[in-house]
């Protein structure tokens, strides 16, 4: 047995660890495995802290917004205000809860107005741990009925889809991620095309031929062809149009504010379109114009 000089031991260890991880990468690609056990352990360890941090921050923010901010406007009543500090603190907390209730009421109204589509409300407790992907983490998971590939929305529009569901948490790939995509169409012209992210704030509508007319500001909605989102949910508005070869380069501003998400709705039904098709078969026939295989919009 050849003895390794002590000064080289760390180099050998480095090489071993790198080779191990390269093999792990290779296995994941070859078998399409995602090392789920390690992910479950890590998410299980970190998500309680994220949940606590999210709640704590919410409390601090509400206190700051509704309590300390008032100090500037009532400076001349300093003495009276001091006497009422405790009460104001309570009011601040109630205001925070009221604001949250308002947001939840918007979600509830949205849910009620779309009663035919079941939805699960969830709170955002974390974002992706790096810049390599654009994801968020929800406080609901498999135990709440959330499964992989479910659509995620807000009343403003489409957010993304669930890419991993753990027992008490789930990860959502945002629409702006490079790997993300959704079946979409232009609301006025009814031209269908997949729309996806590029790792930037704006989305890209990929397969609209140069011959088709598209207007700036035109609404983009879901086509329902990806079997994840029901039809007619807002995706965004056309922000930029450039001629390309052979397709136009259309950039779309997302309807949902993907940089400031607090509560979202998960669509538990993977086939909401089927329900609508049965009710109104005529509406299910899309006016395809230049759409290049929109069903491939959901890449994963």
């Amino acid at each position, binding site marked *: 047995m050849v003895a390794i000089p002590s000064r080289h031991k760390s180099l050998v260890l480095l090489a071993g660890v*790198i080779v191990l*991880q390269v093999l792990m990468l290779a296995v994941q690609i070859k078998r399409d495995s995602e090392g789920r056990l390690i992910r479950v352990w890590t998410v299980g360890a970190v998500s309680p802290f994220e949940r606590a941090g999210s709640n704590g921050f919410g409390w601090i923010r509400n206190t700051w917004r509704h309590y300390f901010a008032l100090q500037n406007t009532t400076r001349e009543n300093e003495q009276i205000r001091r006497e009422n500090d405790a009460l104001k603190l309570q009011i601040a907390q109630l205001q925070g809860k009221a604001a949250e209730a308002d947001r939840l009421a918007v979600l509830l109204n949205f849910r009620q107005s779309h009663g035919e589509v079941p939805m699960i409300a969830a709170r955002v*407790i974390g974002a992706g741990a790096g810049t390599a992907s654009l994801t968020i983490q929800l406080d609901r998971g498999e135990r709440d009925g959330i499964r992989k590939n479910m659509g995620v929305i807000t009343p403003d529009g489409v957010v993304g889809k669930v890419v991993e569901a753990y027992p008490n948490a789930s990860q959502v790939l945002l629409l702006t991620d490079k790997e993300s995509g959704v079946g979409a169409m232009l609301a006025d012209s009814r031209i269908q095309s997949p729309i996806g992210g590029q790792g930037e704030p704006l989305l890209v509508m990929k397969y609209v031929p140069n011959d088709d007319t598209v207007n700036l500001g035109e609404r983009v909605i879901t086509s329902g062809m990806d079997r994840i989102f029901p039809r007619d949910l807002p995706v965004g508005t056309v922000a930029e149009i450039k001629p390309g070869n052979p397709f136009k380069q259309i950039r779309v501003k997302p309807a949902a504010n993907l940089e400031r998400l607090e509560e979202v709705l998960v669509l538990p039904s993977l086939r909401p379109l089927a329900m609508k098709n049965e009710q109104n078969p005529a509406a299910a026939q899309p006016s395809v114009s230049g759409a290049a295989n929109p069903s491939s919009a959901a890449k994963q």
Partner: protein
Amino acid sequence: MNGAFDIRGESHIEVHKFRLGAIIIAMLMALVIQTWTPIHFSKAALLDLPLLVTIYFGLSRRNPSTGLLLGMAIGLAQDSLSGPTVPLGLYGIAKTIIGYLASSLGARLDTEHPAARCALTFAFFVAHQGLIVVTRRILLAQPEPWFNMHLIVAALVNAIVAVFLFLLLDRLRKN
């Protein structure tokens, strides 16, 4: 050579020790803050706190084996928290190498001066991003730009934050 770098023999460099619990808590906190702050402050996504913690413990512990294992652990945890579109090993490999390099350099240079820490963090951040691009291009066959201005801005921001973060982490050292 930068004047802030005090090059001496290995025997003159002080090795700092930490309680295992302090290292684990610091790593966990870095991960939690990394995943949690971008929800409320989108610009916070520029920061790579797990990388800063890896660099800090690498430079302070000055033991390459410990440095690379710490880097691997925090990198794999970061991969796990980034969703299934990021394969396990992407950040893991990059942070393993950075952990090794940081502890190897830490054993040769005095890296206590804030200017040295700032410069080293800048260099390590760029190297880390370079390793990620190499992994993506060569091992994953994913197109990724080598360089953009965003990288320089992010490296500068991380280098500045590192100066203050490292001062905070210095308090975890065993006397």
